[in-house]
């Protein structure tokens, strides 16, 4: 058969994109992207009116630092892993649970193309929604005068967010292809293991994605490698595994 992966993956991508936008988890994505914007508006108003100030260890935190904190805590520690878990694990697992995977498996394309197409749809969808959300938070929170010097930081942060979405999504896509209940394990990993591992001594923190999101150029390389490897493993797994659908 000619080109059993790339062209079918593109067609699968088109189908999956619609599924992403209309699926039952779309509300979560909208909330995840919209809530920080709302929060930024509130904070900006509070700062502008002087009705609030943030003090840590006796030092007043400026709005620029607040943006950095928002990216680190809100996006990289919560929104990015949460979207990765919710969407990545659901890409194939939902089709299995809904028993619609049959319609895809009886098409003339490698099963790996289903995985690849769905993953790319996920990536485009979350990046298209989360990155503008983070950028908007930046433009809302940071005063116009200070933007010039902070644009580099914004670009770097957007890159980290994109990489995080790619890595978390790929890892949990792989889990969704391999495990029966991937969501629970995924939530334990990102909200249980990762925060704990960050404060543990030694090398355990290297067994988290969060660590590499803070690790500079090496981190970028590792995250790209993890993403590619996880998607490849998912493609291989779905080719070999049989799925017994519950009636």
């Amino acid at each position, binding site marked *: 058969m000619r080109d059993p992966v790339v062209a079918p993956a593109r*067609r699968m991508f*088109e189908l999956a994109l619609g599924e992403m936008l209309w699926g039952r988890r779309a509300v979560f994505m909208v909330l995840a992207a919209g809530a920080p914007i709302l929060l930024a508006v509130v904070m900006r108003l509070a700062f502008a009116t002087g009705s609030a100030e943030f003090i840590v260890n006796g030092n007043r935190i400026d709005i620029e630092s607040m943006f950095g904190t928002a990216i680190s805590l809100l996006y990289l520690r919560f929104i990015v892993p949460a979207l990765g878990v919710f969407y990545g694990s659901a890409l194939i697992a939902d089709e299995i649970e809904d*028993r619609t995977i*049959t319609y895809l498996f*009886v*098409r003339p*394309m490698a099963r790996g193309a289903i995985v690849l197409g769905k993953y790319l749809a996920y990536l485009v969808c979350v990046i298209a929604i989360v990155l503008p959300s983070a950028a908007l938070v930046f433009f809302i929170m940071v005063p116009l005068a200070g933007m010039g010097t902070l644009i580099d930081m914004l670009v770097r942060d957007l890159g980290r967010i994109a990489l995080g979405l790619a890595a978390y999504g790929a890892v949990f896509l792989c889990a969704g292809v391999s495990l029966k209940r991937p969501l629970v394990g995924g939530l334990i990993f990102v909200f249980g293991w990762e925060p704990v591992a960050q404060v543990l001594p030694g090398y355990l923190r290297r067994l988290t994605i969060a660590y590499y999101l803070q690790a500079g150029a090496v981190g970028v390389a590792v995250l790209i490698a993890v993403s590619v490897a996880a998607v490849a493993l998912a493609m291989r797994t779905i080719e070999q595994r049989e799925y*017994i659908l519950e009636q």
Partner: protein
Amino acid sequence: MIIATDRLSKWYGHVSGLNDVTVALPEGITGLLGPNGAGKSTFMKIVTGQLRPSAGSVRVFGEPIWGNAAQYHRLGFCPEQDAFYEHMTGREWLEALARLHGMDNATATASAGRALETVDLIDVADRKIGGFSKGMRQRVKLAQAIVHDPALLILDEPLSGMDPIMRRRTIRLIKDWGRAGKSVVVSSHILHEIEAMTANIVLMHNGRIVAEGDVHQIRGLIDEHPHRVWIRADDPHAVARHLLAGDEVSSVRFEEGAVVVETPKPDAFYSRLTRIAASGEAGAIEEVTSPDDNLQAVFTYLVKQ
């Protein structure tokens, strides 16, 4: 042969879904009959490459099916489960699936329209599947199986949930496909449905094939099976007395206004009964029916073996 299996078995853990099934399905329409849990769906899932055999082999069009994606150009499958992308319209869904067959947008649109028209859904093609009735959902499921015009259709309980009129139209549709040169393997646990589509049947029970071939050949298999006949007569006792004078009847019991006899020699028995009725010696014989004369009895008998 379109489909050939050799000592095919499938186990789900310790549970056997298919047990040592060797069968060759010819071109044309083949009915797969059996009660729920007989192994029909397991057989179809293996034949469509969704499940891998635990033992034995299966070939479709002479080639393996598991991991052989090219086979799906020639194969269409209508699964049993009532599962859909509910938010999509019938047309959107079919177009998307047609594109997965490599069709460009224009061809996919035309193919989807043709498939929807075939199953009488063209008028509701732009309604969301989530709002479809059970019968419409069954039909849109059939449409997705034919959207790429396959040579072989595997249909798992396609008539389930359809009203009698749509059931009749779908049976006609399946027969039309057969006449058009397509091969169809269709499953059901209702014999008269299959009987209306084809004479070529495979009977399954407990993961095994208990009989296969032409309906008439299968009937031949039960020649030794006592044939039950229900006779309503003015004087059932007189009828019984005359019948028992010969050696065709093995047992007799009475119901109100009727006698029920069992015979191991149906042909000889019917000749004798006709003679008795014609002579009027035992009074009027008003009605003769034999539950064994329909496929249901054949099926019930065979699966008990």
